[in-house]
């Protein structure tokens, strides 16, 4: 088992390297010279060259990439073009907000999405089921930022229950958490429901019934456990979507997280910040997917036994 973990973890490194390469490459396509942006058009060529060297922008593409990787391994992701601060500092300042939002978000998704999906499946064709399916479809079709705006309109402006921006108290996180997790909840309701329905159609359910098991016993002991296996993987995907959706939610609610850092970074052409933040999120997602895969391998007896 340990061998399998180590193998998977080791396989992560080329992928992380690959991610950094792709992002670095894409963002170095930026037309326009960052040095000119920083110093202005009137700067002398010598000053530009000096700055270029200082920022590590001299040399060919692969030299720069290589330099970037070496520096990154030492925790040096360059400096922000806008603020001059080390990028790593900016990242560190922002990670807690995004982290908090994501954890709360995934918590809501699991605690609400799974039970509703299960109930909807057990009571298939009932009014409750139809409402849940319709509701899930509508919510999943809403743009995240629109949902955020609507929530602000209703709960902040009209009812004055929750603040629209800022990060002072727990109240600041309520609306963003709901916005962030709404689509995740909708998706998980649909997926849990279809996984349960699939599970309940299996032959072993018929065997259980033929033993004289009652509905509760069948659902909990047989259908549910089997249905939840693929859900674990879906929760991982959901988390990934939530992290990348943080860009939008944090912008709408003006939360100082990684997502809004990326957005302002792109708007201000602050390339080092964007590169580092995007790589960070992509790597975080890969790590989460790895963890989810490993968990899945452990809990499914069919896979676990092949590891021995």
């Amino acid at each position, binding site marked *: 088992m340990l061998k399998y973990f180590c193998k998977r973890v080791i396989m992560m490194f080329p*992928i992380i390297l*690959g*991610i950094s*390469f*792709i*992002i670095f490459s*894409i*963002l*170095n*396509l*930026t*037309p326009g010279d960052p040095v000119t942006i920083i110093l202005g058009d009137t700067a002398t060529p010598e000053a530009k060259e000096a700055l270029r060297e200082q920022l590590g922008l001299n040399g060919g593409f692969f030299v720069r990439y290589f330099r970037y990787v070496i520096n990154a391994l030492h925790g040096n992701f360059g400096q922000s073009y806008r603020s001059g601060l080390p990028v790593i500092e900016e990242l560190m300042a922002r990670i807690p907000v995004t982290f908090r939002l994501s954890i709360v978000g995934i918590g809501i998704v699991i605690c609400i999405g799974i039970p509703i999906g299960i109930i909807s499946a057990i009571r*298939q064709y009932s009014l409750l089921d139809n409402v849940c399916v319709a509701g899930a*479809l*509508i919510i*999943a*079709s*809403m*743009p*995240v*930022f*629109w949902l955020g*705006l*609507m929530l*602000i*309109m209703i709960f902040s*402006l009209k009812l004055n229950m929750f603040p629209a921006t800022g990060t002072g108290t727990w109240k600041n996180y309520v609306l963003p958490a709901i916005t962030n997790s709404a689509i995740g909840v909708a998706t998980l309701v649909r997926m849990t429901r*279809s996984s349960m*329905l*699939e599970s309940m*159609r299996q032959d072993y359910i018929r065997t259980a019934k033929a033993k004289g098991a009652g509905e509760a016993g069948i659902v909990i002991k047989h259908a549910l456990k089997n249905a939840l296996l693929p859900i674990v993987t879906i929760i991982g995907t959901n988390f*990934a*979507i939530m*992290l*990348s*959706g943080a*860009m*939008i939610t944090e*912008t709408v609610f003006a939360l100082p997280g990684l997502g809004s850092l*990326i*957005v302002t*970074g*792109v*708007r201000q*052409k602050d*390339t080092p910040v*964007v590169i580092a933040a*995007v790589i960070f*999120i*992509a790597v975080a*997602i*890969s790590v989460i*997917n790895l963890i989810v895969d490993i968990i899945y391998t452990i809990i499914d007896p069919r896979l676990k036994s092949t590891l021995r």
Partner: protein
Amino acid sequence: MSGKNDNKQVTTYKKKSQLESIWFRYKKNRLAMVGLFMLAIMILLAVSAPLFADYQKDAVSQNMKLRYLEPSFVNGHIFGTDHYGRDVFARVIYGGRISLFVGLTSVIISALAGTTIGSVAGYYGGRVDNTLMRLMDVLLAIPQNLLAISIVAALGPGMFNLLIAMSVSGIPEFSRIVRASVLNIKNQEFVEAAVACGTNDARIIRKYIVPNAIGPLIVQATLAVAKAILSISALSFIGLGVSPPTPEWGSMLSEAKSDMRLYPYLVIIPGIAIMLSVVALNLIGDGLRDSIDPRLKN
């Protein structure tokens, strides 16, 4: 003893073409038909937009005297006007053109490129497959929206760059789906049987792989257009998509943000437009999925 049935022919069934049976099953699905109807109306409105409003006059030019008119049937602005005095209805239907155009085009490009890569990898396997998939694995590790925003960051905002970003960021997902589909079909016994009969590669691809892979592909493409519309409006909302004054549902919402308190209709209307398009496409995608393989239905 002889009986009545000695010379009787046994009854046979009339065969329906596959396309006909798919359409037949689709028609029976009421929700799917609603989705189709909704999409048809949207396309109609988008295509015939000039009939309803003039682009320059209504959607783009500013008329400060007509600012912030509430929606009503009486004053000729059924969705009201925005903070620049532009007719919201006109902006919504011209905005629909953008969403549909960019959404559809980017998905078609992603699908074509992705299908090529995925089917080559899936069909030929071996080293070709391995190298392609290593590359795709890295690309797939980056969420689609992040990939798109990186490309927009590199190229700058604007509709054309948005189109490129959306097309490219969608390719990895399509290659993965098509590759999985091709592998699945390739390993089924009817293909094995065809190979055993001496069928050549081209014929196998044409008669067996393509017809079976194209169904799931179309379903995915439909759902991808729905996701694309959401991404396009999201990017425009944060200022990285279509540039003003081009009307786009996402940027309309961005502009309406500051007017939320006093003029909620400016926020509600474009959002509903996005939601309805996405719902329609999702219903169609789900309906197609059920019609193409009824065994998957619950």
